[in-house]
């Protein structure tokens, strides 16, 4: 894991790195596209796994090792499992029965494209060719220090939130 980040700091490997990025990115985009288009719910969940894994790789590119690991553990490990449970519990069909009206898809597509256009213009306009230099991976120590000093209040807030979500989920889904 550390390898990738180290490699990235060496200038002559930029090309290789960019190619690697491109491959991952294209894979992710395709996978994401399938997530939102496939008719089969289980397939969608599996495609989502690919996207999430890709995101984890992107995190590695950016030197955020700890986040990448968390991403794999939490998302691929827990969230996807939850989804699959959900699919089974709701007996959502495994087959191709996801039929959505075409007009609605078009509307959504237009909104999406519009959003993308705006964002793309804004991004290209403001960051042009700003480089991001990764000196090396972020240590877990750094992250943990930050969490438990500077960001302690949001951290506590998030923990309360999780607790609340836990209780909330139970209350909502309880059978009575």
């Amino acid at each position, binding site marked *: 894991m550390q390898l990738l980040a180290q490699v990235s700091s060496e200038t002559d490997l930029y090309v290789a790195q960019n190619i690697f990025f491109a491959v991952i990115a294209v894979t992710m985009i395709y996978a994401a596209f399938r997530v939102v288009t496939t008719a089969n719910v289980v397939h969608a969940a599996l495609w989502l796994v690919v996207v999430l894994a890709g995101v984890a790789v992107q995190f590695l590119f950016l030197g955020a090792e700890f986040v990448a690991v968390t991403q794999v553990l939490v998302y691929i490990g827990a969230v996807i499992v939850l989804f699959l449970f959900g699919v089974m519990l709701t007996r959502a069909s495994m087959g191709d029965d996801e039929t959505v009206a075409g*007009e609605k898809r*078009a509307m959504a597509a*237009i909104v999406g494209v519009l959003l993308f*256009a*705006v964002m793309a213009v*804004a991004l290209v306009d403001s960051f042009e060719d700003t480089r991001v230099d990764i000196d090396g991976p972020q240590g877990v120590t750094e992250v943990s220090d930050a969490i438990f000093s500077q960001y302690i209040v949001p951290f506590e807030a998030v923990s309360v939130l999780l607790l609340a979500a836990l209780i909330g989920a139970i209350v909502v889904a309880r059978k009575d």
Partner: protein
Amino acid sequence: MFPRLAAGAVSEVSTVTNEANWLLENAWLIALLPAISFVLILFFGKKMPFKGAEFGITAVSISFILAILTGAAWMEHRDNFTLDTFGEKAAVLVDDGAGSAVDNVTLAVGTAAEAAGGDGQAYVAVQKTTQWLQSGGVEFNAGIMVDGLSVMMLFVVTMISLLVHIYSTDYVGGDRRYTHFFAFLSLFTASMLFFVLSDNILQMIVGWELVGVCSFALIGHWWEEKPNSDAALKAFITNRVGDVGLLVGMITLFFAAGKGMTFDTITINENILQGGVSHTALVVAAACLTIAVMSKSGQFVLHTWLPDAMAGPTPVSALIHAATMVVAGIYMVARLFPVFWEGMQIDGSSINFLATVGAVTLVGAGLLAFVQDDIKKVLAYSTVSQLGYMAMALGVGAWTAAVFHLFTHAFFKANLFLGSGSVAHAVHSFDMKKDMGGMRKFMPKTYVTFLIGSLALAGLFPLAGFWSKDEILVNTGGWGILGGSASAPGSYTFHFVMGMIGAALTAAYMTRCVYLTFHGEYRGGHHDDHAEDHADDHGHHGEPHESGPRILYPLYILSAFSILVGFVNFPPGFLTGSKKDPAGWQERFLHFIEPAGSSYFPAVGHATPSWWLAIVASLVAVAGAGAAFTYYFVKVDRLAQRTGEHLVGLPNGVTTTNALARAGHKLLVNKYYLDHLYTGIIAGGTKGPIAKAAYWVNQNVLDGTVDGAGRTAVQSGKLVYEKIDQGVVDGAINASGRTSAAIGEELRHINTGRVQNYAAIMFAGAAILAGAFVLLLAL
């Protein structure tokens, strides 16, 4: 008011003083007492033994006494505030100035005093002002201004109010809203006095509106019946129309003549008279204020509310719709006379808006009075007509004559109204033709007072109306042959003629009214429930009987005044004594009331009275009365006696034989169709089609746009999709057919209420906004 102290020092000291008799300085007490009485009646009225009437009567009595004392103090002030004392005061007032400043002041005062008659007396109003509020660098003051005009009004208002209070204890006795009635009488009295005393135009607006709302409440006193509340609404809304003129006119004055700094009446008048105020602004202000007068003082074409206002109890009609509130417009013009004097260029002219409105009203309303069956409506149109006299007088520059007519009219018209109330009290109706006739036998005392009032109104020598009417006519300067017009402000021939016609009409319709009410045979007696049965619970309908003392005594007093008040302004040379004898009897009214020579009043010329004119005018009035007398007292009466029928007119009069006369009669009966125009077309139009149209636009266009915007966001997405997607898949298809089909489809699926549609709109909106922002930053 900084600039006035500095720049206006000269004019100020020559016009206003704060130093005067205690009574003059504290005249606001007169207005305060009825206001206190209003509050007391409101909160405790029902618990009191006389249901609140005692508060009102006590307060107004004290006010009345104070008003008399104030009047006396004013006379003393007017006569003794001489040049010498004045010079000293001026020197004190400008104490920080150099010696020359004092000289200037004295000089200016000297000039003013000479103009006043060279008797060493200056006409100095008393003003007490305090800051009310301050906003945007403008001070709004509250204060009182006491001069002859306001003292005169104080007397009239408090006296008639007191008499009406006493009268009402009997007339309205037993009414379910007896206490409310007195509360509003008190409030009205307070508001009217507030209006009269105000020293600035803003306060005048306040008082003007307050009397309007009291009038609304009192006209609608018996609001259970729709015609009454309709009349109240009509009165209020018509007055509001005039208020547009008032607001615009006053605002124009504030900026043009008050220089955007002061509402002070005196300063505004002074600024106008000193010149330097845009003439255009004055024309606009004068025209707008004339509109205000048209509504409040019932001038053509906004007079229609006044006859309808007779739906209120009779004492209210006497107090508000005859003697006091309706003259507020006249009072306002008199107060702000320089506006009209300069704005309409009254001096040396022969026609202007105000005078013409007055003249038309005078004759137009006089004609309408002929076709009324309701005794109060006759009097109402008569009031309109007489107010026309006053407006015309002001328009032709006869300031004192107008104010004098206001003064005399208040007494005899209140007398007539209360008299008509007394009759109606007996017969429980106001309809002269159906329920009256021959009342002379049943109510001789009321008859005498009513007759005196009628004669005074008709302007027959030597009753009050004669003197004031004559003064107006002579001051029109209209007819040189009869003499006396030489020094009148202008030469208003048209208005003179209208005044003459008005005199004849007045005499004639009052004769008709007296005949129909008091002479001939009693036509009532049949049971006929009419408006007035709220007023009392006597219940029985036998022979009508004379009213009680609380009704009669006010009538006696007013009759006495109707006879006597004309004498306070003998024209010069009328009795013995020199022409300008201040100690004599002549022109006392003019001397005390007209602010001649003060810097806030223009140099108005006064016509020389003419014996000839007085005689001709009297003859005209007698001729009018005579014609009506011949018709009713001679012809109709004889016919009635011959046939034994109850007649109210000749069966073969001109209206039955002559088509033109019939058409005229129809026009009059329909009140020149003005009510149709207002109620049917304007009000009905606004309330109905126009308001509905506006609301339709609201619901369908504006709201539709908004609802539509949401739909369109969805729709346009779909439409574009249809074009692109379908185009790719299916190739070229008939575009128009597809679009129309698509639109039909969309219209069915509008408003899905699905979360995702809303989310789509939200995202799209966010995208567009963000895009806008990006563009904005790029600019």
